């Protein structure tokens, strides 16, 4: 299964490399985290209630279905956060950070 999103333009941007769940992925400068993850795969996170994959829904900061975490426990809304080099993202909440 290919990635969910397709790039159709603006592909000449500077590459950015980030770490998601311990794996390196390639993105482009100006990508949101959501774009970066969904041009590389087909989910962002899992729903807390049924454990099923989710990939965002509204892309405009309203539905709150795209929250991810940094390895240090910071929460990020993937649709409105721009990627940066060496960002370290986890797609599941790190349990010990949230007693």
């Amino acid at each position, binding site marked *: 299964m290919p990635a969910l999103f397709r790039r159709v333009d603006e592909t000449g941007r500077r590459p950015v490399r980030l770490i998601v769940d311990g794996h390196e992925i390639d993105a482009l400068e100006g990508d949101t985290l959501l774009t970066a993850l969904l041009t590389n795969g*087909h989910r962002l996170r899992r729903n807390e209630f049924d454990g099923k994959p*989710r990939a965002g*829904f509204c892309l405009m900061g309203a539905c709150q279905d795209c929250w991810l975490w940094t390895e240090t426990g910071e929460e990020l809304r993937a649709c409105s956060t721009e990627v940066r080099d060496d960002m370290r993202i986890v797609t599941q909440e790190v349990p010990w950070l949230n007693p």
Partner: protein
Amino acid sequence: MAESLIVVGAGPAGTRAAERLVQAGLRPVVIDENERQGGQIYRRQPENFNRPPEKLYGTEAARARALHADFEALRPHIDYRPGTTVWGVAEEGLLAVRGSTVTTLPFSAIIIASGATDRIMPLPGWTIPGVYSLGASQIALKAQACTIGGAPVFMGTGPLLYLVAWQYMRAGVKPAAVLDTSSLATRLRGLRGMMSRARVVANGVHYMADLARAGVPLHAGITPLRVEGREDGVTGVAWQDARGRLRRTACDAVGTGYGLRAETQLADLLKCMFAFDPRFTQWRPQVDPDGRTSQPDVYLAGDGVLLRGADAAEAAGRLAACALLQDRRIAVAPDEIVGLRKSLSTLDRFAGGLAKAFPWPAHLAAALPDDTVVCRCENVTAGDIRHAATALDSPEINRAKALMRPGMGRCQGRMCGLAAAEVLAAARGVPVDKVGRIRSAAPLKPLPLDCRIAP
């Protein structure tokens, strides 16, 4: 004491409101959650993207250019706070957050121009990765130069359905189908109102013709049944055609939406009076023709109060600023107000026509299978809401929310609220305005755990 004026939202309505205040010699604070000004229709791409406005905004490129340029010219005269979300209201002022820094912004008057989101009707399978709102489908393209898939179905109703499908086709991604719940006969009923803006109707017809010519199946009067797929994505949609035949369209993504839903939470926190608007079948704050609410010093403009589209948002933003100025005994030429009201009345007729031509299919909520997720935040199903309606005897949506949690999640019912109310109303056998509306509560959007209060 000096005036402290706040404009929330830097889309067409907020931009024009701020501009009018600046013209009167005032210096408003302008807050927008987005890093870049423009709002929804004139949303800007990141700075390192190169596509020209014509490619992003099509027929509206000139208006987009003007709105962006006029805002840039305002920058030295306003206190602009991009990337800042207003999440609450306190005695001392608005509560806003940027990153993890919370600030309180005192105000003597406020213009809220918070825009709208897609209006969503849930359906079985809509939580599968690859199902997005129509607006999201457009944002992916406009702001990120991506499409939600390689062969998407656009399903729902409203003019945005055809616009987005056409924009995808132009970007080289041919939609698998455009499926509209509104029948051709229904659309004709709205045509008279819509003819107040013949140019816009012509654009819409042109999009449909282009799509049809390219071989994109366009179906009217359909009934959505479900999205099919696996954990890793969508494989198709099942639907019924106008003659009741079961159909299936293979696709790898779905964009769905049924017109728009006004973003009204802030007005609610500021205790503005609301009323049910049968035209747009949703609750909204009550305003006078110029945007005054039931609360002194609180003004509303744009799609965040009345879903009349982008051109109306610009006029309404300016008009709300004029009302604010008048209420402060700052002279405004009567001609200006008369002119703005007049252009708004044409746009209003058009919006009424659109709402008639592409109605919210409330009946679909009543037909949702019990196990369909309605609230995507907390996975509350249609059956759960019906259980609240009948076994638990909740006559009203906030009661149902307290018992079964629809609309209780992080999005505060922005996605599910209107549909949840329809499910509840149908189960109770009452009109939807009788079950009320989900009350807003701070924080309007989730706050980071590590918030700091700015000094």
